[in-house]
Protein backbone atom coordinates (compact mmCIF):
# COMPACT_ATOMS: atom_id res chain seq x y z
CA UNK A 1 0.00 0.00 0.00
CA UNK A 2 2.93 2.29 0.77
CA UNK A 3 4.24 1.69 -2.75
CA UNK A 4 0.90 2.63 -4.24
CA UNK A 5 0.83 5.80 -2.18
CA UNK A 6 4.39 6.78 -3.06
CA UNK A 7 4.08 5.83 -6.75
CA UNK A 8 1.58 8.64 -7.10
CA UNK A 9 4.20 11.12 -5.91
CA UNK A 10 6.61 10.33 -8.76
CA UNK A 11 6.75 12.38 -11.93
CA UNK A 12 6.85 10.04 -14.92
CA UNK A 13 8.08 12.81 -17.25
CA UNK A 14 11.03 13.55 -14.98
CA UNK A 15 11.93 9.86 -14.74
CA UNK A 16 11.79 9.50 -18.53
CA UNK A 17 14.02 12.55 -18.97
CA UNK A 18 16.44 11.18 -16.40
CA UNK A 19 16.53 7.82 -18.18
CA UNK A 20 17.09 9.36 -21.62
CA UNK A 21 19.82 11.78 -20.55
CA UNK A 22 21.56 9.11 -18.47
CA UNK A 23 21.38 6.71 -21.42
CA UNK A 24 22.94 9.24 -23.81
CA UNK A 25 25.53 10.51 -21.32
CA UNK A 26 26.59 7.12 -20.01
CA UNK A 27 26.73 5.55 -23.50
CA UNK A 28 28.89 8.38 -24.79
CA UNK A 29 31.19 8.26 -21.77
CA UNK A 30 31.54 4.48 -21.92
CA UNK A 31 32.04 4.44 -25.69
CA UNK A 32 34.78 7.07 -25.60
CA UNK A 33 36.43 5.31 -22.67
CA UNK A 34 36.41 2.05 -24.63
CA UNK A 35 37.62 3.77 -27.81
CA UNK A 36 40.51 5.28 -25.87
CA UNK A 37 41.40 1.86 -24.47
CA UNK A 38 41.19 0.34 -27.94
CA UNK A 39 43.30 2.83 -29.86
CA UNK A 40 45.79 3.49 -27.05
CA UNK A 41 47.78 0.30 -27.81
CA UNK A 42 47.99 1.27 -31.51
CA UNK A 43 49.85 4.42 -30.59
CA UNK A 44 51.93 2.58 -28.05
CA UNK A 45 52.85 -0.05 -30.66
CA UNK A 46 53.71 2.59 -33.23
CA UNK A 47 55.67 4.52 -30.67
CA UNK A 48 57.44 1.30 -29.63
CA UNK A 49 58.60 0.65 -33.19
CA UNK A 50 59.60 4.23 -33.76
CA UNK A 51 61.43 4.54 -30.48
CA UNK A 52 63.89 2.00 -31.81
CA UNK A 53 64.43 4.13 -34.88
CA UNK A 54 66.47 7.28 -34.98
CA UNK A 55 65.36 10.55 -36.47
CA UNK A 56 67.80 12.79 -38.35
CA UNK A 57 67.99 16.40 -37.31
CA UNK A 58 69.94 19.18 -38.96
CA UNK A 59 69.88 22.93 -39.06
CA UNK A 60 67.59 24.58 -41.58
CA UNK A 61 69.54 26.04 -44.46
CA UNK A 62 68.60 29.59 -45.25
CA UNK A 63 70.27 32.36 -47.19
CA UNK A 64 72.54 33.16 -44.22
CA UNK A 65 73.78 29.59 -43.99
CA UNK A 66 74.63 29.53 -47.68
CA UNK A 67 76.78 32.59 -47.12
CA UNK A 68 78.29 31.38 -43.89
CA UNK A 69 78.58 27.60 -43.97
CA UNK A 70 79.74 27.35 -40.37
CA UNK A 71 76.15 27.98 -39.30
CA UNK A 72 75.01 24.55 -40.46
CA UNK A 73 77.18 22.83 -37.83
CA UNK A 74 76.03 22.02 -34.31
CA UNK A 75 78.21 23.43 -31.57
CA UNK A 76 79.05 21.11 -28.66
CA UNK A 77 76.73 23.23 -26.42
CA UNK A 78 73.87 22.74 -28.87
CA UNK A 79 74.49 18.99 -28.97
CA UNK A 80 74.60 18.94 -25.17
CA UNK A 81 71.34 20.87 -24.97
CA UNK A 82 69.62 18.27 -27.19
CA UNK A 83 71.02 15.44 -25.05
CA UNK A 84 69.65 17.05 -21.89
CA UNK A 85 66.04 17.18 -23.12
CA UNK A 86 63.95 14.72 -21.08
CA UNK A 87 62.35 13.10 -24.13
CA UNK A 88 65.69 12.32 -25.81
CA UNK A 89 66.86 8.77 -25.27
CA UNK A 90 70.19 8.96 -27.10
CA UNK A 91 71.95 10.81 -29.89
CA UNK A 92 74.57 9.77 -32.44
CA UNK A 93 76.70 11.99 -34.63
CA UNK A 94 77.27 11.58 -38.38
CA UNK A 95 80.93 10.91 -39.22
CA UNK A 96 82.14 12.46 -42.52
CA UNK A 97 85.02 11.34 -44.67
CA UNK A 98 87.74 14.00 -44.67
CA UNK A 99 89.61 12.56 -47.60
CA UNK A 100 89.16 12.24 -51.34
CA UNK A 101 86.87 9.45 -52.58
CA UNK A 102 86.11 8.37 -56.10
CA UNK A 103 84.19 5.50 -57.63
CA UNK A 104 84.86 4.00 -61.04
CA UNK A 105 84.58 0.95 -63.27
CA UNK A 106 86.79 -0.26 -66.01
CA UNK A 107 85.06 -0.76 -69.34
CA UNK A 108 83.90 -4.31 -70.00
CA UNK A 109 81.43 -6.03 -72.28
CA UNK A 110 78.50 -5.58 -69.86
CA UNK A 111 79.39 -2.46 -67.95
CA UNK A 112 80.26 0.93 -69.40
CA UNK A 113 83.21 2.77 -67.84
CA UNK A 114 82.36 5.50 -65.38
CA UNK A 115 84.17 7.69 -62.92
CA UNK A 116 82.69 9.89 -60.24
CA UNK A 117 83.80 11.82 -57.24
CA UNK A 118 82.04 10.63 -54.07
CA UNK A 119 81.63 11.45 -50.41
CA UNK A 120 81.11 9.08 -47.52
CA UNK A 121 79.45 9.38 -44.17
CA UNK A 122 78.85 6.86 -41.44
CA UNK A 123 76.57 6.40 -38.47
CA UNK A 124 76.73 3.90 -35.62
CA UNK A 125 75.53 0.49 -36.84
CA UNK A 126 72.69 0.49 -34.31
CA UNK A 127 71.20 3.56 -35.98
CA UNK A 128 70.74 1.96 -39.39
CA UNK A 129 67.19 1.24 -40.49
CA UNK A 130 68.27 -1.84 -42.49
CA UNK A 131 70.24 -4.97 -41.62
CA UNK A 132 73.02 -5.92 -44.03
CA UNK A 133 75.18 -8.99 -43.52
CA UNK A 134 78.15 -7.52 -45.38
CA UNK A 135 78.30 -4.51 -43.08
CA UNK A 136 80.23 -6.15 -40.27
CA UNK A 137 81.90 -8.94 -42.19
CA UNK A 138 83.73 -6.37 -44.35
CA UNK A 139 85.97 -5.36 -41.42
CA UNK A 140 89.64 -5.81 -42.38
CA UNK A 141 88.87 -6.87 -45.98
CA UNK A 142 89.23 -5.06 -49.29
CA UNK A 143 85.47 -5.06 -49.83
CA UNK A 144 83.70 -1.82 -49.00
CA UNK A 145 79.86 -2.11 -48.67
CA UNK A 146 77.86 1.03 -49.39
CA UNK A 147 74.30 2.03 -48.51
CA UNK A 148 72.61 4.72 -50.58
CA UNK A 149 69.28 6.46 -50.03
CA UNK A 150 66.34 4.74 -51.67
CA UNK A 151 65.34 8.10 -53.11
CA UNK A 152 68.44 8.05 -55.34
CA UNK A 153 67.05 5.06 -57.32
CA UNK A 154 63.70 6.74 -57.68
CA UNK A 155 65.45 9.90 -58.85
CA UNK A 156 67.38 7.88 -61.43
CA UNK A 157 64.54 5.63 -62.62
CA UNK A 158 61.76 8.20 -62.85
CA UNK A 159 63.89 11.27 -63.62
CA UNK A 160 67.27 10.71 -65.16
CA UNK A 161 66.69 7.38 -67.01
CA UNK A 162 63.37 8.64 -68.38
CA UNK A 163 64.86 11.83 -69.79
CA UNK A 164 68.05 10.28 -71.13
CA UNK A 165 66.45 7.13 -72.61
CA UNK A 166 68.39 4.87 -70.29
CA UNK A 167 67.05 1.57 -68.90
CA UNK A 168 65.45 1.56 -65.45
CA UNK A 169 67.19 -0.39 -62.70
CA UNK A 170 65.83 -2.52 -59.89
CA UNK A 171 67.35 -2.63 -56.42
CA UNK A 172 68.46 -6.20 -57.12
CA UNK A 173 70.27 -5.19 -60.32
CA UNK A 174 72.05 -2.30 -58.64
CA UNK A 175 73.19 -4.57 -55.80
CA UNK A 176 74.80 -6.90 -58.34
CA UNK A 177 76.81 -4.11 -59.93
CA UNK A 178 80.49 -4.17 -58.76
CA UNK A 179 82.74 -1.11 -58.93
CA UNK A 180 85.91 0.22 -57.39
CA UNK A 181 86.33 2.87 -54.77
CA UNK A 182 89.55 4.76 -54.53
CA UNK A 183 90.40 6.63 -51.34
CA UNK A 184 93.38 8.94 -51.11
CA UNK A 185 94.91 11.53 -48.83
CA UNK A 186 98.06 12.37 -46.93
CA UNK A 187 100.05 10.98 -49.91
CA UNK A 188 98.48 7.54 -49.51
CA UNK A 189 95.99 5.79 -51.75
CA UNK A 190 94.01 2.55 -51.66
CA UNK A 191 91.46 0.91 -53.93
CA UNK A 192 88.55 -1.15 -52.61
CA UNK A 193 86.11 -3.43 -54.37
CA UNK A 194 82.68 -2.10 -53.70
CA UNK A 195 78.99 -2.75 -54.17
CA UNK A 196 75.76 -1.15 -53.07
CA UNK A 197 74.40 -3.48 -50.40
CA UNK A 198 71.34 -1.63 -49.17
CA UNK A 199 68.96 1.28 -49.53
CA UNK A 200 68.01 3.51 -46.64
CA UNK A 201 64.68 5.25 -46.31
CA UNK A 202 65.76 7.31 -43.40
CA UNK A 203 69.30 8.53 -43.84
CA UNK A 204 69.83 10.73 -46.82
CA UNK A 205 73.55 10.08 -47.38
CA UNK A 206 76.08 7.66 -48.87
CA UNK A 207 76.94 5.44 -45.94
CA UNK A 208 79.90 3.18 -45.33
CA UNK A 209 80.58 1.15 -42.16
CA UNK A 210 81.51 3.31 -39.18
CA UNK A 211 84.54 1.19 -38.34
CA UNK A 212 85.91 1.75 -41.89
CA UNK A 213 85.46 5.51 -41.87
CA UNK A 214 86.95 5.86 -38.41
CA UNK A 215 90.08 4.04 -39.57
CA UNK A 216 90.24 5.69 -43.01
CA UNK A 217 89.94 9.19 -41.52
CA UNK A 218 93.03 8.45 -39.41
CA UNK A 219 95.06 7.29 -42.41
CA UNK A 220 93.87 9.56 -45.22
CA UNK A 221 91.99 12.33 -43.47
CA UNK A 222 92.88 15.89 -42.64
CA UNK A 223 93.95 16.32 -39.04
CA UNK A 224 91.16 18.74 -38.10
CA UNK A 225 88.39 18.67 -35.61
CA UNK A 226 85.36 16.81 -36.90
CA UNK A 227 82.31 19.01 -37.20
CA UNK A 228 78.73 17.78 -36.83
CA UNK A 229 76.04 18.96 -39.22
CA UNK A 230 73.53 16.19 -38.62
CA UNK A 231 72.49 14.22 -35.56
CA UNK A 232 70.64 10.98 -35.18
CA UNK A 233 68.27 11.20 -32.25
CA UNK A 234 66.23 8.45 -30.61
CA UNK A 235 63.34 9.21 -28.28
CA UNK A 236 61.79 7.44 -25.31
CA UNK A 237 58.35 8.16 -26.73
CA UNK A 238 58.30 9.52 -30.29
CA UNK A 239 54.64 10.46 -29.80
CA UNK A 240 55.65 12.99 -27.12
CA UNK A 241 54.18 16.32 -28.18
CA UNK A 242 57.15 18.24 -26.73
CA UNK A 243 59.51 16.90 -29.44
CA UNK A 244 58.12 18.89 -32.35
CA UNK A 245 57.67 21.96 -30.20
CA UNK A 246 61.30 21.83 -29.10
CA UNK A 247 62.79 21.38 -32.58
CA UNK A 248 60.52 24.00 -34.13
CA UNK A 249 61.54 26.36 -31.38
CA UNK A 250 65.23 25.71 -32.08
CA UNK A 251 64.59 26.03 -35.83
CA UNK A 252 66.09 22.60 -36.49
CA UNK A 253 64.98 20.56 -39.44
CA UNK A 254 63.61 17.18 -38.46
CA UNK A 255 62.27 14.23 -40.35
CA UNK A 256 58.67 14.54 -39.20
CA UNK A 257 57.53 11.25 -40.70
CA UNK A 258 58.57 9.40 -37.58
CA UNK A 259 56.69 11.85 -35.39
CA UNK A 260 53.36 11.65 -37.20
CA UNK A 261 52.02 9.26 -34.60
CA UNK A 262 52.65 11.91 -31.97
CA UNK A 263 50.59 14.48 -33.85
CA UNK A 264 47.77 12.05 -34.41
CA UNK A 265 47.86 10.91 -30.83
CA UNK A 266 47.60 14.49 -29.64
CA UNK A 267 44.74 15.33 -32.01
CA UNK A 268 42.80 12.16 -31.25
CA UNK A 269 43.41 12.53 -27.52
CA UNK A 270 42.03 16.08 -27.64
CA UNK A 271 39.02 14.97 -29.74
CA UNK A 272 38.29 12.05 -27.41
CA UNK A 273 38.82 14.30 -24.39
CA UNK A 274 36.24 16.78 -25.68
CA UNK A 275 33.73 14.03 -26.45
CA UNK A 276 34.36 12.37 -23.09
CA UNK A 277 33.79 15.72 -21.37
CA UNK A 278 30.49 16.11 -23.20
CA UNK A 279 29.49 12.60 -22.11
CA UNK A 280 30.45 13.31 -18.50
CA UNK A 281 28.59 16.64 -18.56
CA UNK A 282 25.41 15.00 -19.92
CA UNK A 283 25.70 12.25 -17.29
CA UNK A 284 26.26 14.83 -14.55
CA UNK A 285 23.27 16.82 -15.81
CA UNK A 286 21.07 13.73 -15.73
CA UNK A 287 22.16 13.07 -12.16
CA UNK A 288 21.50 16.67 -11.28
CA UNK A 289 18.07 16.36 -12.88
CA UNK A 290 17.12 13.31 -10.83
CA UNK A 291 18.51 14.80 -7.62
CA UNK A 292 16.52 17.95 -8.27
CA UNK A 293 13.47 15.84 -9.08
CA UNK A 294 13.85 13.91 -5.80
CA UNK A 295 14.29 17.17 -3.91
CA UNK A 296 11.06 18.49 -5.44
CA UNK A 297 9.19 15.24 -4.75
CA UNK A 298 10.26 15.26 -1.11
CA UNK A 299 9.43 18.93 -0.64
CA UNK A 300 6.09 18.62 -2.43
CA UNK A 301 5.15 15.59 -0.32
CA UNK A 302 6.38 16.85 3.03
CA UNK A 303 3.00 16.39 4.67
CA UNK A 304 2.66 12.88 3.30
CA UNK A 305 6.11 11.94 4.65
CA UNK A 306 5.35 13.48 8.05
CA UNK A 307 2.01 11.66 8.22
CA UNK A 308 3.62 8.36 7.28
CA UNK A 309 6.17 8.89 10.01
CA UNK A 310 3.42 9.80 12.47
CA UNK A 311 1.50 6.58 11.86
CA UNK A 312 4.61 4.51 12.44
CA UNK A 313 6.60 4.36 9.20
CA UNK A 314 10.31 4.81 9.77
CA UNK A 315 12.71 6.86 7.66
CA UNK A 316 14.04 3.65 6.01
CA UNK A 317 10.52 2.57 5.03
CA UNK A 318 9.78 5.94 3.48
CA UNK A 319 13.11 6.10 1.60
CA UNK A 320 12.95 2.50 0.39
CA UNK A 321 10.54 3.04 -2.50
CA UNK A 322 12.38 6.05 -3.94
CA UNK A 323 15.71 4.31 -3.41
CA UNK A 324 14.48 1.16 -5.11
CA UNK A 325 12.88 3.03 -8.02
CA UNK A 326 15.87 5.21 -8.84
CA UNK A 327 18.42 2.44 -8.22
CA UNK A 328 16.50 0.10 -10.53
CA UNK A 329 16.10 2.70 -13.27
CA UNK A 330 19.78 3.66 -12.97
CA UNK A 331 20.92 0.04 -13.06
CA UNK A 332 18.76 -0.80 -16.07
CA UNK A 333 19.87 2.31 -17.96
CA UNK A 334 23.55 1.68 -17.16
CA UNK A 335 23.28 -1.92 -18.32
CA UNK A 336 21.53 -0.69 -21.46
CA UNK A 337 24.30 1.92 -21.99
CA UNK A 338 26.86 -0.82 -21.52
CA UNK A 339 25.12 -2.94 -24.17
CA UNK A 340 24.81 -0.04 -26.61
CA UNK A 341 28.46 0.93 -26.07
CA UNK A 342 29.57 -2.67 -26.68
CA UNK A 343 27.41 -2.87 -29.81
CA UNK A 344 28.86 0.39 -31.15
CA UNK A 345 32.33 -0.86 -30.30
CA UNK A 346 31.63 -3.91 -32.46
CA UNK A 347 30.65 -1.56 -35.29
CA UNK A 348 33.80 0.55 -35.11
CA UNK A 349 36.05 -2.48 -34.63
CA UNK A 350 34.66 -3.86 -37.94
CA UNK A 351 35.11 -0.52 -39.67
CA UNK A 352 38.66 -0.03 -38.37
CA UNK A 353 39.69 -3.63 -39.06
CA UNK A 354 40.97 -2.58 -42.50
CA UNK A 355 43.42 -0.14 -40.96
CA UNK A 356 44.21 -1.28 -37.45
CA UNK A 357 44.21 -4.42 -35.41
CA UNK A 358 41.93 -3.53 -32.57
CA UNK A 359 39.34 -5.21 -30.48
CA UNK A 360 41.58 -8.07 -29.46
CA UNK A 361 41.66 -6.88 -25.90
CA UNK A 362 38.72 -7.73 -23.66
CA UNK A 363 36.34 -4.90 -22.99
CA UNK A 364 37.00 -3.27 -19.64
CA UNK A 365 33.72 -1.35 -19.68
CA UNK A 366 32.36 -3.13 -16.63
CA UNK A 367 34.81 -1.08 -14.52
CA UNK A 368 33.40 2.38 -15.40
CA UNK A 369 29.86 0.94 -15.36
CA UNK A 370 30.43 -0.30 -11.83
CA UNK A 371 32.07 2.96 -10.74
CA UNK A 372 29.30 5.06 -12.28
CA UNK A 373 26.63 2.85 -10.72
CA UNK A 374 28.28 3.01 -7.29
CA UNK A 375 28.71 6.80 -7.47
CA UNK A 376 25.11 7.38 -8.60
CA UNK A 377 23.57 5.02 -6.07
CA UNK A 378 25.72 6.23 -3.16
CA UNK A 379 25.23 9.94 -3.94
CA UNK A 380 21.54 9.45 -4.54
CA UNK A 381 20.96 7.44 -1.37
CA UNK A 382 22.93 9.88 0.75
CA UNK A 383 20.97 12.80 -0.60
CA UNK A 384 17.63 11.02 -0.25
CA UNK A 385 18.33 10.10 3.36
CA UNK A 386 19.40 13.68 4.08
CA UNK A 387 16.28 15.10 2.44
CA UNK A 388 13.90 12.84 4.35
CA UNK A 389 15.76 13.47 7.61
CA UNK A 390 15.42 17.19 6.90
CA UNK A 391 11.66 16.83 6.53
CA UNK A 392 11.31 14.72 9.69
CA UNK A 393 13.30 17.28 11.66
CA UNK A 394 10.46 19.68 11.04
CA UNK A 395 8.32 17.77 13.50
Amino acid sequence: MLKKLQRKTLSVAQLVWYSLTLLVGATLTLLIFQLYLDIGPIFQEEAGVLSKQAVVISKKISLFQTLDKDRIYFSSEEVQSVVQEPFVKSIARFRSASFKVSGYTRASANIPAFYTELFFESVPDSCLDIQVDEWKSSEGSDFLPIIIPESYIKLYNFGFAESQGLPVLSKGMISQFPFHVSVSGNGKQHTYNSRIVGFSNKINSILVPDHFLKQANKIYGKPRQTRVSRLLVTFDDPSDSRILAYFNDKNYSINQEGLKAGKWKLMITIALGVMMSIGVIITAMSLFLILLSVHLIIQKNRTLILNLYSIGYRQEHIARFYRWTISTITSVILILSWGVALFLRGVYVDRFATYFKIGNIDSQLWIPVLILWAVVVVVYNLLLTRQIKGVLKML
Partner: protein
Amino acid sequence: MIIALDKVKPIYMSEQEISCSDIYMNKNMVFNTREKVLIRAQSGRGKSSLLNFIYGVKSSFDGHIEVNGQSVRKEVQSDHMSYVFQDLKLFDTLTVKENILLKNDLTNHKTEAEIDLMLSQLGLSEKRDEPVKHLSIGQQQRVAIIRALCQPFHFLLLDEPFSHLDQQNVAIAVGLINRELKEQQAGLLLTTLDPCDAFQYDKTLQL
Protein backbone atom coordinates in the same frame (compact mmCIF):
# COMPACT_ATOMS: atom_id res chain seq x y z
CA MET B 1 4.01 0.41 31.07
CA ILE B 2 4.24 3.88 32.60
CA ILE B 3 4.26 7.33 31.08
CA ALA B 4 5.96 9.75 33.48
CA LEU B 5 5.87 13.53 33.05
CA ASP B 6 8.14 15.77 35.06
CA LYS B 7 7.58 19.53 35.04
CA VAL B 8 6.43 19.47 31.43
CA LYS B 9 5.45 22.74 29.81
CA PRO B 10 5.12 23.78 26.15
CA ILE B 11 7.95 26.20 25.46
CA TYR B 12 5.52 28.60 23.83
CA MET B 13 3.32 28.91 26.96
CA SER B 14 4.14 30.93 30.05
CA GLU B 15 3.93 29.44 33.55
CA GLN B 16 1.14 31.86 34.26
CA GLU B 17 -0.95 30.46 31.40
CA ILE B 18 -0.70 26.94 32.79
CA SER B 19 -0.84 27.75 36.49
CA CYS B 20 -4.16 25.88 37.03
CA SER B 21 -3.11 22.75 35.06
CA ASP B 22 -3.17 19.30 36.72
CA ILE B 23 -0.52 18.10 34.26
CA TYR B 24 1.74 20.89 33.06
CA MET B 25 4.55 21.77 35.50
CA ASN B 26 3.45 18.88 37.68
CA LYS B 27 6.47 17.28 39.35
CA ASN B 28 5.48 13.70 39.02
CA MET B 29 2.57 13.05 36.70
CA VAL B 30 2.22 9.36 35.93
CA PHE B 31 -0.13 7.49 33.56
CA ASN B 32 -0.38 3.75 34.05
CA THR B 33 -1.34 1.27 31.43
CA ARG B 34 -4.94 -0.03 31.86
CA GLU B 35 -5.81 3.42 33.15
CA LYS B 36 -8.42 5.49 31.35
CA VAL B 37 -7.69 9.19 31.66
CA LEU B 38 -9.79 12.08 30.43
CA ILE B 39 -7.90 15.32 29.85
CA ARG B 40 -10.16 18.33 29.58
CA ALA B 41 -9.26 21.80 28.56
CA GLN B 42 -10.51 24.80 26.72
CA SER B 43 -9.35 25.57 23.26
CA GLY B 44 -5.70 26.68 22.99
CA ARG B 45 -4.57 25.10 26.27
CA GLY B 46 -2.24 22.64 24.60
CA LYS B 47 -4.28 19.42 24.50
CA SER B 48 -2.94 18.24 21.14
CA SER B 49 0.53 19.44 22.11
CA LEU B 50 0.49 17.28 25.24
CA LEU B 51 -0.42 14.13 23.28
CA ASN B 52 2.13 15.01 20.57
CA PHE B 53 4.81 15.42 23.26
CA ILE B 54 3.96 12.03 24.78
CA TYR B 55 3.79 10.33 21.35
CA GLY B 56 7.18 11.82 20.44
CA VAL B 57 6.25 13.72 17.27
CA LYS B 58 6.82 17.08 18.86
CA SER B 59 9.59 18.07 21.23
CA SER B 60 8.95 21.75 21.80
CA PHE B 61 8.55 21.36 25.54
CA ASP B 62 10.48 22.02 28.72
CA GLY B 63 10.74 19.28 31.33
CA HIS B 64 10.99 15.59 30.87
CA ILE B 65 8.73 12.83 29.51
CA GLU B 66 9.67 9.16 29.85
CA VAL B 67 7.94 6.04 28.58
CA ASN B 68 9.17 3.04 30.55
CA GLY B 69 12.22 5.01 31.64
CA GLN B 70 13.18 6.12 28.08
CA SER B 71 12.99 9.73 26.97
CA VAL B 72 10.43 10.30 24.23
CA ARG B 73 12.47 13.03 22.60
CA LYS B 74 14.40 10.57 20.44
CA GLU B 75 11.72 8.62 18.64
CA VAL B 76 8.05 8.36 17.80
CA GLN B 77 6.39 5.96 20.25
CA SER B 78 4.42 4.10 17.59
CA ASP B 79 5.59 0.75 18.98
CA HIS B 80 3.83 1.35 22.30
CA MET B 81 1.09 3.77 21.44
CA SER B 82 -1.63 4.28 18.89
CA TYR B 83 -2.93 7.73 18.17
CA VAL B 84 -6.05 9.25 16.66
CA PHE B 85 -4.76 12.66 15.66
CA GLN B 86 -7.00 15.68 15.78
CA ASP B 87 -6.16 16.35 12.11
CA LEU B 88 -6.61 12.61 11.45
CA LYS B 89 -3.55 12.33 9.14
CA LEU B 90 -5.36 10.32 6.50
CA PHE B 91 -4.03 10.03 2.93
CA ASP B 92 -6.36 11.72 0.48
CA THR B 93 -5.30 9.74 -2.58
CA LEU B 94 -6.03 6.38 -0.91
CA THR B 95 -9.41 4.80 -0.33
CA VAL B 96 -10.92 4.09 3.09
CA LYS B 97 -9.73 0.48 3.05
CA GLU B 98 -6.29 1.42 1.71
CA ASN B 99 -5.79 3.98 4.48
CA ILE B 100 -6.48 1.29 7.05
CA LEU B 101 -4.36 -1.31 5.26
CA LEU B 102 -1.47 1.14 5.09
CA LYS B 103 -1.26 0.87 8.86
CA ASN B 104 -2.18 -2.80 9.09
CA ASP B 105 0.49 -3.72 6.50
CA LEU B 106 3.01 -2.39 8.99
CA THR B 107 1.66 -4.27 12.00
CA ASN B 108 -0.32 -7.21 10.59
CA HIS B 109 -2.49 -6.80 13.66
CA LYS B 110 -5.91 -7.39 12.12
CA THR B 111 -7.21 -9.68 9.43
CA GLU B 112 -9.05 -8.21 6.46
CA ALA B 113 -12.25 -9.74 7.79
CA GLU B 114 -11.81 -7.97 11.14
CA ILE B 115 -11.20 -4.69 9.34
CA ASP B 116 -14.29 -5.21 7.18
CA LEU B 117 -16.33 -5.99 10.32
CA MET B 118 -15.22 -2.75 12.00
CA LEU B 119 -15.98 -0.80 8.83
CA SER B 120 -19.43 -2.31 8.72
CA GLN B 121 -20.04 -1.66 12.45
CA LEU B 122 -19.18 1.99 11.96
CA GLY B 123 -21.33 2.23 8.82
CA LEU B 124 -18.51 2.59 6.32
CA SER B 125 -18.96 -0.64 4.33
CA GLU B 126 -20.25 1.19 1.31
CA LYS B 127 -17.49 3.72 1.49
CA ARG B 128 -14.60 1.27 1.77
CA ASP B 129 -13.42 1.80 -1.83
CA GLU B 130 -14.04 5.56 -1.89
CA PRO B 131 -11.08 7.92 -1.63
CA VAL B 132 -11.16 9.45 1.84
CA LYS B 133 -11.17 12.94 0.41
CA HIS B 134 -14.79 12.30 -0.68
CA LEU B 135 -15.86 11.48 2.89
CA SER B 136 -17.31 13.83 5.49
CA ILE B 137 -15.21 14.77 8.53
CA GLY B 138 -17.31 12.47 10.70
CA GLN B 139 -16.72 9.55 8.35
CA GLN B 140 -13.03 10.36 8.20
CA GLN B 141 -12.94 10.37 12.03
CA ARG B 142 -14.38 6.85 12.04
CA VAL B 143 -11.72 5.70 9.51
CA ALA B 144 -8.97 7.18 11.71
CA ILE B 145 -10.36 5.37 14.76
CA ILE B 146 -10.41 2.01 12.93
CA ARG B 147 -6.87 2.63 11.66
CA ALA B 148 -5.67 3.38 15.22
CA LEU B 149 -7.05 0.04 16.38
CA CYS B 150 -5.03 -1.84 13.77
CA GLN B 151 -1.88 -2.09 15.84
CA PRO B 152 -0.69 -3.47 19.17
CA PHE B 153 -0.35 -0.74 21.81
CA HIS B 154 -0.02 -0.10 25.53
CA PHE B 155 -1.68 3.29 25.34
CA LEU B 156 -4.29 4.67 22.99
CA LEU B 157 -4.16 8.43 22.54
CA LEU B 158 -7.37 10.06 21.32
CA ASP B 159 -7.35 13.76 20.47
CA GLU B 160 -10.94 14.99 20.38
CA PRO B 161 -11.94 11.81 18.52
CA PHE B 162 -15.70 12.21 18.56
CA SER B 163 -15.98 15.89 17.76
CA HIS B 164 -17.89 15.22 14.51
CA LEU B 165 -19.71 12.03 15.46
CA ASP B 166 -23.32 11.53 16.46
CA GLN B 167 -24.21 9.71 19.70
CA GLN B 168 -24.93 6.43 17.91
CA ASN B 169 -21.57 6.34 16.15
CA VAL B 170 -19.79 7.46 19.34
CA ALA B 171 -21.34 4.52 21.17
CA ILE B 172 -20.25 2.05 18.47
CA ALA B 173 -16.74 3.53 18.35
CA VAL B 174 -16.47 3.41 22.16
CA GLY B 175 -17.54 -0.23 22.06
CA LEU B 176 -14.81 -1.09 19.58
CA ILE B 177 -12.21 0.88 21.50
CA ASN B 178 -13.16 -0.66 24.86
CA ARG B 179 -12.90 -4.13 23.41
CA GLU B 180 -9.44 -3.39 22.00
CA LEU B 181 -8.29 -1.79 25.28
CA LYS B 182 -9.42 -4.85 27.14
CA GLU B 183 -7.78 -7.27 24.73
CA GLN B 184 -4.53 -5.39 24.75
CA GLN B 185 -4.76 -4.46 28.45
CA ALA B 186 -3.92 -0.94 27.41
CA GLY B 187 -4.45 2.53 28.82
CA LEU B 188 -6.37 5.44 27.33
CA LEU B 189 -5.58 9.15 27.20
CA LEU B 190 -8.46 11.13 25.75
CA THR B 191 -8.50 14.88 25.33
CA THR B 192 -11.71 16.78 24.91
CA LEU B 193 -13.06 20.28 24.83
CA ASP B 194 -16.53 19.42 26.08
CA PRO B 195 -17.50 17.01 28.83
CA CYS B 196 -17.27 13.46 27.48
CA ASP B 197 -18.76 10.57 29.43
CA ALA B 198 -18.28 7.96 26.75
CA PHE B 199 -15.86 5.95 28.88
CA GLN B 200 -15.63 5.18 32.56
CA TYR B 201 -12.54 7.13 33.45
CA ASP B 202 -10.08 6.33 36.21
CA LYS B 203 -8.89 9.95 36.21
CA THR B 204 -10.20 13.22 34.91
CA LEU B 205 -7.58 15.94 34.68
CA GLN B 206 -7.82 19.58 33.83
CA LEU B 207 -5.10 20.88 31.54
